[in-house]
Structure formats: structure tokens, C-alpha cells
């Protein structure tokens, strides 16, 4: 158990972030908090990729002329996650735009209040 905590702790962080993100998305009534939960959930996945590319005592993958100089940290997951972060930012922007629209139409960003407002419609 101790060994797991000291060597694989990044994966525990991944599990924690995924759990917290999913919990906030399901449990919170506030749309903005739901979006924050979505971001936390995605961050969990980003951390997963980054830790998968990590190498103990690995260096940044800049190969000297003539080659050699390893071991390197795998650059591929970092590049992928850079793209995924951009996707995540765009999603957050669209989601917040929708929240603004919802607030303009109903005057609330709370899911439960929204349901009450809509039953009156």
C-alpha cells in the first residue's frame, strides 16, 4: 500500500480527479459548477496521459547532435494533451456561452430552479 502511494501516486490523482469531476457534474445543481466538474474530469485524463509518458530520471526529449543522451520522457502524450487541452478550452467556452443564454432566457443557472420555471411555462 505504502509502495503504491509512493510510486504510483499520479494514478491515484487521476482516479481522484475523475471521481471528483464526475461527482460534481452529477451532484451540483449549478450549471457553472457542472462545467467546472467537466473540466476537473478532463484534467484527470490529461494527468493520466502525462504520467503514462513519464520516465524516472527521464530528460526532456531533445536529442543532441550525434544522437544518444537518453532516457527521455515520451513526448507523444504531451503533444496529444496539448491538443486535448485546446479542445477542452473550446468546449468550456461554448458551455459558458450556453449558460449565458440560459440565464438570459430563464433568469437562473440552477438546474432545479430551472425545472420549476419550466413547469410554469
Amino acid at each position, binding site marked *: 500500500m505504502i509502495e503504491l502511494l509512493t510510486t504510483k501516486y499520479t494514478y491515484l490523482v487521476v482516479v481522484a480527479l475523475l471521481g471528483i469531476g*464526475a461527482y460534481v*457534474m452529477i451532484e451540483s445543481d449549478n*450549471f457553472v459548477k*457542472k*462545467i467546472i466538474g*467537466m473540466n476537473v*474530469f*478532463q484534467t484527470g*485524463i490529461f494527468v*493520466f*496521459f502525462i504520467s*503514462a509518458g513519464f520516465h524516472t530520471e527521464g530528460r526532456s526529449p531533445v536529442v543532441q547532435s550525434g544522437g544518444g543522451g537518453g532516457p527521455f520522457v515520451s513526448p*507523444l*502524450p504531451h503533444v*496529444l494533451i496539448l*491538443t*486535448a487541452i485546446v*479542445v477542452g478550452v*473550446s*468546449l468550456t467556452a*461554448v*458551455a459558458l456561452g*450556453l*449558460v449565458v*443564454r*440560459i440565464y*438570459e*432566457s*430563464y433568469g437562473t443557472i440552477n438546474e432545479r430552479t*430551472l425545472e420549476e420555471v*419550466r413547469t410554469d*411555462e
Partner: protein
Amino acid sequence: MSDAYLPLLVALPLLGALLAVAAGLGSERGPAVVAPVVLAAQTGLAGWLGSRAILDGPLSVGVGGFVAPYGIELVVDGLSAAVVVLVAVVSLAALAFVTEDDPGGTAFYAEYLLLVAGLSGMAVTGDVFNLYVFLEITGLATYALVASAGTGRSAVSALKYLLFGTVAASLYLLGVGYALVATGTLNMADLATELAAAGYDSPLVLASFGFIVVGLATKTALFPLHTWQPDAYADAPDSVSALIAALVSTVAAYALLRLVYTVYTPAFFEAVPVARDALIVFAAVSIVVGSVLAVTQSEVKRMLAYSSVSQYGLVVVGVAIGTPAAVFGAVVHLLGHAIMKGGLFVAAGTVADVTGARTVDEYAGLADRFPVLGGASAVLMLAMVGVPPAVGFAGKWYIALGAVRAGTWPVAVVIFASTLLTLAYFALLVERMFVAPASESVLAATDGGRDGDAEGDALGPSPPPTARPSRRALALVVGAAVVAVVLGLVVTDLGTALEPTIDTLLSP
């Protein structure tokens, strides 16, 4: 075979979206002119590349000159050719309805073209991470298009769709992560061999399969992961629901098929039979529950949406059974469903525009007043039920045939039961349209006036009824009906064209 024109399938609509924005700066009508031109070019390109892929074998290109498996590969084989052509043709056709139905605007056309770019990208990519990116591009454009109705209701549906869609795509990404950890590669063809080398019973490979299937099944809207879908379809503008019902989930189901057979290969199913059984049960439950939910709906667009849940279940069951007949049936049903459901949503939107009728009861007497519209939508509904010779019959027939040949009898029973349920809800609608006395809204429409009926108003300010369906909308519905029947008649030719592709997919 290498082909330099392949990236244009994605680049053209992407560039078109920018052009639409640029044209919108110059003039109000600019984007409405740019979009059809770009999509017509896209259709031509897709047709040309698709026919070459079917006749001469798969085309592929390494983007930016980086060779696979290090670079991103774009591949068009028979199957992706069919999907790319479907995307191009349906989006071009749906554009005719957009100009009838919507305010349009620069942002709308730009999003529309981005959606086409994302869908084409999903169809042609040969790289699992690249597929994630296109999945999200498709998603972003779809959320924005759903919200383009401009009502608060559509914004809520779009946000719900966004939260679901993002979690689905994130789960897919997690699955890709597991596969990457197991193999160190992202190229689909390369993954197929590397996953086999990693061992199909390795927990990493099993987890990646699970996450990828759940992620894509949510995007495809299988029960119980479908809850975003009816709201999104019902609250979107009519033209947008026609487009996304026809294409978005279809391409997600195609991606599922592609990953199951190109990445995990049939050998994975043989090594881990429980994965196949789980997928079959999942899809079978989706078929039955989707149909039952559709029967209980009173609003027509919602009924069509739940019907999609059941029809995609059929497609996935065909994929899971995995005999050549079943997979061919799944592909036929995928293509046929896109055309039939797209046509039905255009019909539903036209009826709502003309009469304000949105519920099953309000459809009463519709066929007497609007015989062409009623007749064509009845043909589409019967095609959906699976009356020969329409394409709905062909797809279900091949899937059932595959199920029987593979010895999975319960699936054949489920398909039969779902056909009866499909008949139940569509027969009700056909009966209302042709037999029942005309409802108030239908009568009001032909008088040229309209009294405030609640359902029409709840979905935002709809334009005043013109009391006559427009020629373009009629042409679309009739066209979809004709294509649905003709496609059913030429299904054996389609089989000959796709046979080499499916054989390659299914050969270990």
C-alpha cells in the same frame, strides 16, 4: 494506394467555414451562397475519391509527409467512402431545407460547414487520437447548431448534450490512453497488430475496449446512454434536427464499427467472447427499450428521436454479431437509416411550419390536405418499419440473417419484436394522417389562419404558416422516399461493391 487529394475532404469544408465568415463580413447573403458551393464541391470530391476507393482499392495518405505509424494517416476504403459520400450528399440536401426553415446567418453556416468537416474527418481518419479530435469538432459544431434555435429551451438541451458528449469523448480518450500505454502507437492499422502482440486478455486492452465502446455508444445514443438525444433533437431548429439525426450518430456508429474491426479485429472477439456478448446484450436492450419509449411519445420529433435509439441498437447488434451478412446489414441500415430519418425529420419540420402540428394527434387528417407530403412520409415510415423492397427491410433482413447464421437466435427474435413495435408507432401516425378526421391545426392551416396552439408556441416563435409546404421541402421528402426505395432495390449491387472491404475487415 497513395492519394494527395484525400486531405481536401477535410480541408475543403474547413476552409469553407472560414470563407463563410469572410463572406458574411462583406454581405448579408454571402454565407448562404458560399455554403452550397462548398458543399457541392465536397460532394463532387467525395464522389470521385469514393468511387476510386471502391473500384481500385483503399486510398491513403500520410498528412504533412509524415509516414504512418508516426504521422497521421488518412484512409478511404469502401466503407469510409460510403460514409463520406453520405455525409456530403445529405448535408448538401439538408441545406435546401435550411434556407426554408432558418434565419441562417454567418455563424450558422460556418458551424454547418465545421460539422461537415468534423464528420468527414471522422470517416477518413486512420488514427485513433485524430478521431478524438474530429469527434470533438463534430460535437462542438453540433452543440452550437442545436442552440441556434435561439430559445432558452434549446440552450438547455444543448448544454445537456455538451456535458454528456464531453464525458463520452473523454471516456473515449481514456480508452485511447490505455491502448497507447499498452502498445505505444495510435495508428489504427498498427494498433491492430500491436494489440494482438500485447495480448487480448491484458487488462489494459480490455479496459481500453470498454472505455472506447462506452464513449462511442454514448455518442451513438444507445440506451441507457441516450438521455441527451431526444431533447437535443426535439429542441433544435427543424433543419438542424434533420441534419444531426441523419448524420451525427450515424458517423459515431461508423466509428464504433471501424474501431471494433480495424483496431480490435475479430480475433479480439474470439479471444474475449464476453466482450461480444456484452455488446450484443447492450444493443439488444437498446433496440427494445428505444422502441417502447418511442411508442409512448406523443410529440412526433421525440418519437422519431427514440426510434433512432432503437435503430442504432440494430446497427450495433449487426456489428457485434460480426458475420459478413450481419456487418453488411449494419452498414446498409446505417446508410438507409440516415436517409429515412433525415427525410422524416424534414417532413416533421415542414408539417410544423405549415400547420403548427407537432403531436401525433395533431397530425390527424394531414394526408387529405397535403397528399404528397403525407404520402411521401408514409412511404418513409413504412420503409423504416421494414416493408420490402425499401432499404429498411434490406438492412434488417441481413442483420437477422447474420444473427441466425451465427446461431444467436434471441437476436433474431429481438429484431422481429422491434419491427412490430416500430410498426406500432408508425402505423398509429399513418392511421392519424390518412384515416382520422382532420385536427384543428390542420384545418386552420388550410384556412390560412392559425389559432395559438400550445405546442407550436412552446418551441419558440415559428414563422407564420404559409399553409402550403414549400417545393424544396416537398422535393426533399419525396426524394428521400424515392432513394429509400431505390436503395433497397439496388442493395445487392451495393453488396458487391462493399464485399471486398467487409471481407478485409472481417479477415483476421
